[in-house]
């Protein structure tokens, strides 16, 4: 009986799956066009899956092995099942292979079940709770029905009743695994995920050592294109596809600083809301952690309805979008390679450019940028005031230099001016030939862009690009990772092919490490206390620079006491993405949490490499540790290279002396 029933069931499930897939594809295609090479993408998919994706999944070994067993077992079992039971090709080794595949999958399913026994808060519940049972049903069902096929059991084993039970189990398994895959069940992730990998909007992020973190430019000259994303259908189709790939594992939620601070953002929920939006409906069925302070079930959306309501509620509230610090911790952790930050900035672009609804100080900062080319609204002529006594060479005078020292807007900030002065001291100690743009420098546009004001970003960027083109230099060095990122990763799209053909951008920690390696700097031994290092998001996750700052600290004689969350898992200071400007309230402050991380490391000093991080961490009340930029630590430790014995006692001391602070 089963021999008759099985092919019918299998092909019925496959047929329904094809219909479901077609319906799903239609949903994705509501999005705007995006030129991705389809065939090339499909060809690259297996490698992206097996290498890039598993590199992320592999950070959790148990889960990685579980997934290999379950998914690998399933894919093999499904193919073999179609051959063996669908087409009746039971001869030879195929049946045995099917037995083995389903057995492996069954083992995997047990690990999935174990994970679901006391699931962490980040995992979505709901339909996902039945998945281990469905996996077990499928694998067990397939295993059992294959036993007679390979002759381990007699063909007429058991009663018809048993056959019926078996058939039911197989139907359950097929329903979840095949039909459910395209009709919105948990297994959707496999279908959408595979295609998402193939048609990913950042193909350049795949491959060993590659990363793609710069925001993509809006074409402001295209009058037909929307300014950002107002409704789900304003996303490109492959962005919508990407949302659909979400497996609701909640790794993003677990690392999101805004979520941890109790601000109304949960990256997983946001992606799921986009899924609700692309299909239409309410978020009532969402079975994970809500946005802090926002109950589930009160928001509805549709592909062509606004995501953020002009009045009342729609799919997502604006403050959810403005809570993001753009720290990329979610993107870094996402095993499905979803680009949360792109989506958030796309939606912010609409709010800022079309509606003028940048909250709190946002509008003021953007007005300042438009009027004065800096976010603080300072007199642009005062950018070099901090260096009035340093006689810095100006590019306008010297026209060329080995290094262009990019100041960033920290030039207007008294705290960062100390870092800049320390950096100048270091450059001079190493006899680096450098110059500054002085009042020709403008804000890099980082904040404008991340607040959604693409027009102001492009205006600033184009003028900076034109200024840079006037001079000759080999390197830009900056102590601001945001400038570093924007100059290095985001100007290229606007600056034309030869824009940065003749120079590279370096974060000051990288440059100092190079100077030290070249023997151009010498340091007195470290005499301070325990030190930890805070990775700035825009240096670490955005640009992959984790080593150089640590190498500099090591050269200073400092043994870094790492925080639990460091390197690519570093916790954001809360200062990125304009978050301190939009200032969405939460239950805690992100920098307080980060300073607590510092405290737990036992460090008395936290070394940083970013003006934003410095400002945020120093803003923590009753902090247990001192905050100092790497440049300051280096400047303090400088000794003459030739005659180390000539160093006077005050220089050797690691304490703050007035000479360094002003």
């Amino acid at each position, binding site marked *: 009986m089963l021999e008759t029933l099985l092919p019918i069931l299998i092909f019925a499930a496959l047929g329904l799956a094809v219909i479901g897939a077609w319906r799903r594809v239609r949903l994705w295609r509501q999005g705007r066009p995006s030129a991705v090479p389809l065939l090339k993408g499909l060809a690259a998919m297996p490698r992206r899956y097996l290498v890039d994706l598993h590199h992320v999944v592999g950070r959790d070994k148990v889960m990685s092995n579980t997934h290999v067993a379950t998914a690998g077992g399933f894919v093999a079992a499904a193919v073999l099942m179609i051959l063996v039971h669908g087409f009746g090709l039971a001869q030879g080794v195929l049946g045995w292979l099917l037995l083995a595949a389903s057995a492996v999958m069954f083992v995997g399913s047990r690990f999935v079940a174990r994970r679901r026994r006391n699931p962490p808060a980040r995992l979505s519940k709901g339909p996902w709770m039945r998945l281990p049972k469905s996996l077990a049903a499928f694998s067990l069902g397939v295993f059992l029905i294959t036993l007679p096929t390979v002759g381990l059991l007699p063909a007429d084993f058991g009663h018809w009743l048993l056959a019926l039970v078996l058939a039911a189990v197989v139907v359950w398994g097929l329903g979840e695994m095949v039909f459910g895959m395209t009709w919105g069940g948990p297994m959707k992730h496999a279908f959408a995920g595979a295609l998402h990998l193939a048609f990913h909007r950042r193909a350049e992020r795949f491959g060993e050592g590659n990363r793609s973190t710069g925001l993509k430019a809006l074409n402001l000259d295209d009058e037909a294109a929307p300014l950002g994303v107002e409704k789900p259908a304003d996303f490109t189709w492959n962005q919508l596809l990407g949302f659909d790939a979400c497996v609701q594992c909640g790794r993003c939620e677990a690392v999101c600083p805004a979520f941890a601070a109790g601000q109304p953002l949960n990256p997983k929920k946001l992606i799921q809301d986009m899924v609700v939006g692309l299909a239409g409906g309410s978020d009532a069925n969402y079975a994970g952690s809500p946005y802090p302070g926002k109950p589930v079930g009160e928001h509805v959306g549709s592909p062509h309805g606004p995501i953020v309501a002009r009045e009342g509620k729609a799919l997502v509230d604006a403050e959810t979008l403005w809570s993001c610090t753009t720290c990329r911790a979610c993107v870094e952790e996402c095993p499905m390679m979803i680009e949360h930050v792109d989506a958030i900035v796309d939606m912010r672009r609409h709010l800022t450019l079309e509606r003028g609804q940048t909250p709190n100080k946002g509008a003021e900062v953007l007005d300042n940028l438009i009027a004065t080319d800096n976010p*603080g609204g*300072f007199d642009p002529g*005062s950018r070099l*005031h*901090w260096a*009035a*006594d*340093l006689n810095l060479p100006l590019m306008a005078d010297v026209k060329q230099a080995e290094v262009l020292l990019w100041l960033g807007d920290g030039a*207007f*900030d*008294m*705290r960062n*001016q*100390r870092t800049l002065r320390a950096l100048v001291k270091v450059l001079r100690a190493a006899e680096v030939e450098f110059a500054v743009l002085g009042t020709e420098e403008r804000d890099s546009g980082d904040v404008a862009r991340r607040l959604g004001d693409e027009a102001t970003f492009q205006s600033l960027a184009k003028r900076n690009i034109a200024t840079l083109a006037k001079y000759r230099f080999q390197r830009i060095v900056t102590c601001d990772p945001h400038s570093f990122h924007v100059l290095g990763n985001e100007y290229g799209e606007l600056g034309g092919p030869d824009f940065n053909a003749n120079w590279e951008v370096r974060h000051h920690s990288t440059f100092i490490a190079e100077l030290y390696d070249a023997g151009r700097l010498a340091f007195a031994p470290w*005499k301070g206390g325990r030190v930890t290092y805070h990775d700035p998001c825009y240096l670490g996750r955005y640009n992959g620079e984790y080593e150089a700052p640590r190498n500099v600290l090591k050269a200073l004689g400092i043994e870094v006491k790492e925080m639990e969350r460091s390197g690519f898992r570093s916790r954001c200071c809360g200062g990125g993405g304009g978050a301190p400007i939009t200032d969405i309230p939460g239950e805690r402050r992100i920098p307080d949490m980060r300073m607590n991380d510092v405290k737990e490391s036992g460090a008395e000093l936290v070394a940083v490499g970013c003006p934003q991080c410095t400002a945020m961490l120093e803003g923590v009340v009753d902090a247990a540790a001192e905050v100092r930029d790497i440049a300051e630590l280096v400047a303090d430790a400088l000794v003459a290279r030739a005659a180390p014995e000539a160093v006077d006692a*005050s220089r050797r*001391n690691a*304490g*703050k*002396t*007035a*000479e360094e*602070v*002003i």
Partner: protein
Amino acid sequence: MAFDAIFQPIQIGKLTIRNRVVSTAHAEVHATDGGMTTARYVKYYEEKAKGGCGLCICGGSSVVSIDSPQAWWSSVNLSTDRIIPHFQNLADAVHKHGGKIMIQITHMGRRSRWDGYDWSTLLSPSGIREPVHRSTCKTIEEEEIWRIIGDFAQAARRAKEGGLDGVELSAVHQHLIDQFWSPRVNKREDQWGGSFENRMRFGMEVLKAVRAEVGDDFVVGMRICGDEFHPDGLSHEDMKQIAAYYDATGQLDFFGVIGSGCDTHNTLANVIPNMSYPPEPFLHLAAGIKEVVSVPVIHAQNIKDPNQAQRILEGGYVDLVGMTRAHIADPHIIAKIKMGQIDQIKQCVGANYCIDRQYQGLDVLCIQNAATSREYMGLPHIIEKSEGPKRKVVVVGGGPGGMEAARVAAERGHDVTLFEAAEALGGQITIAAQAPQRDQIAGITRWYQLELVRLGVDLRLGTRADEATLLDLRPDIVVLATGGQPFLSQFPEWGYSENPEESLVVSTWDVLSGKVAPGKNVLIYDAICEFSGVSAADYLADKGAKVEIVTDDIKPGAAVGGTTFPTYYRSLYEKEVIMTSDLMLHKVYREGDSLVAVLENEYTGALEERVVDQVVVENGVRPDEGLYYALKEQSRNKGQLDLEALYAIQPQPCLSEAGDGFLLFRLGDCTAPRNTHAAIYDALRICKDF
């Protein structure tokens, strides 16, 4: 940005100054070796530059000629080329830290002393005596005028060759240039006096000669007063006319403006306003000058606080603010503003210890910062953490000496406990601050309070430490700064008793602290003549008492400095306090409800009586030595200091000697009654090596 107005660079002539804060010219009394800017001088200014000061104008009243004596106030001598290499050291030290440095140059004319050194004959336009220095002088002759004009030019050349950034011509404080300006002093009828142009001529010739000598790429400024405050002197309108006249030459790069002339004791007190003055009392005069000139205007006088400086600069009243005493109190004030450490700034309280020493020809020191002017000796403004063992340090007494000891020990990284019997820190400062016009002295305590809390010192207020409590803490070091008590028991005839019911006399502390209610008819006997007697008189008169203050010294308040006794006198005379000198307190006895004070004339022995209802005696402090002698024998060092090490600013040898038990040091009035600075200095030099 907070304080952005302060941190705006400015051009003076062709020079860029990194911010708007100036340490204006003042006499440091630090130039040694015949007026050379030697190590102490250089380090004093280097510290300010290191701390971020934009411009230092050094050398108040630095002389250009040999007949303007420099030795009285150890001022800088620009009358010889010998100064040039010394200037190079000075310039390098300041430039190294990004600061700029200029020097004030002058001829003092009649405003000096003649009775010493070269026995110079002083000069002035019309030979009129100067009262503050009791200086007589001759009428200057034409030849001397031209010689001195040439001396100015040569002095400016020496400043330029020494690498300084500019010179400030002093036409203020009644120096020779403004002696010519002022019709009060200039009665000449030749081309150097009479008409406006004639009175201006000397200064104009000086300016022309200087500019011709140094050229256009060297800053030349002029310091003037905004109003002499004498009916027969130069008014504000006169000064505006003068400033505009000189400005019109286009040869001056800046003006410095000071309110008030200073050739009487009373006007002198205006020039360096003490704590009785409001903030920036003469800013309006500088602003008036700024209205009529085309170059930057600097103004100093009671600008001590960054918010005040920001407000003045933001308002555009002047272009640069002088924060000179502010820098004496804390040469790192600018760095602290930049570091956002406003609460850590040691703010000048206007005690004028610095300037009052200067007028006596003593080196300028700060009442509350013992490191100032002692940088060359190695006394630190920033106390570095010790690399030695962490020690348990117990300080007894929360007066200035005890607070400084606790601060320094805590900065060194030690575990510090401070006992203070009173409910608040401050010791005698708290009492001193009760007098009218003297409340700001409590700023000294305020800073220590903030610092001790910041440094985590265990403050046990309202707790009198005894031997057992101290030793329970198992201290490594005990510092006693327990002060003392008013010394009323010296003469039994005064009728002092420890029982307040029986005592016929009370102390100024009793009065100022409110322990004893003010009488209605009070005799104050002041054998000390420092602040406490006149403070008590001012306090009692303020409360409505009829007060007579009697001293056996030459006058009440005789030991109060030259910029402060005038402000007391203004207040005491206004309140009709009677000031009597030359009488000793012979005896006090009770008669009915009244007290009779018998006074004896020191010179005739004649007795006279006063019938009053309260007799207040100020006879100094008797050290409180009880705890010291209780601990002395148990301590490792028997409470002794190695004086050679102490005076050489070296660590006390006992600190590095091994042994059981604790080290004992005492300082301040519990050793011998001295003053606030003495207590703080001892605390710093002893504790800096803990």
